[in-house]
């Protein structure tokens, strides 16, 4: 299935845009997607950390994904 992904901050620069589409196996989890993204964009692995958000909430590695989810790459935050 296709997953639409939002990228912010430095992740936007690493991934070359603020939105991207990634193909993952059906029933993939957030952890599997994170692994896939790190393989496709190795510079993500050089960050202090990064998390995925699914439908505007931080996702645990075992969070299941569906094609309608809004997924976002959350590099280390630095607001305030």
């Amino acid at each position, binding site marked *: 299935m296709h997953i639409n992904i939002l990228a*912010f901050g430095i992740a936007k620069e690493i991934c070359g845009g603020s939105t991207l589409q990634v193909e993952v196996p059906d029933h993939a989890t957030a952890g599997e997607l994170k692994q896939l993204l790190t393989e496709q964009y190795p510079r993500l692995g050089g960050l202090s950390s990064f998390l995925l*958000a699914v439908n505007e909430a931080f996702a645990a590695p075992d969070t299941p994904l569906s094609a309608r989810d809004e997924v976002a790459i*959350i590099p280390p935050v*630095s*607001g*305030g």
Partner: protein
Amino acid sequence: MDIDVIISDKPLDIMACVGQVTRPNAGGIDVFIGTVRDATQGKAVLRLEFEAYQSMAIREMRRIAEQAFAKWPVHAIAIHHRTGVLQIGEVAVVIAVSAAHRAAAFEACRFAIDTLKQMVPIWKKEVFEDGEVWVAAHP
């Protein structure tokens, strides 16, 4: 719970934020104002650029306020954050907390800014004379 959360690309109005938490039953209002500093680790900063995952950031800011209500007897909490390009001295964030007594207001306000910095999906880029850096991105 009396919570006011705003993300705006326009300059923040400090007194408007304070006004959001002013209550007749409050004995004090604690306010934190985060401003753009002109240097980081001795290196001159020209400006900051803030970006937010707006919908999630609003949710997370609201959640922080809800947690503060659960921990301390506070009356109202306002959290306002700026996005876009900010010059030195401009206001990036304002947090105001009112309570019957000052201890709760101080502690809840500190909790709110500390947790915001750890959890809320907002990013800042420091722009220097010779380049730019996303803050905290790399070890």
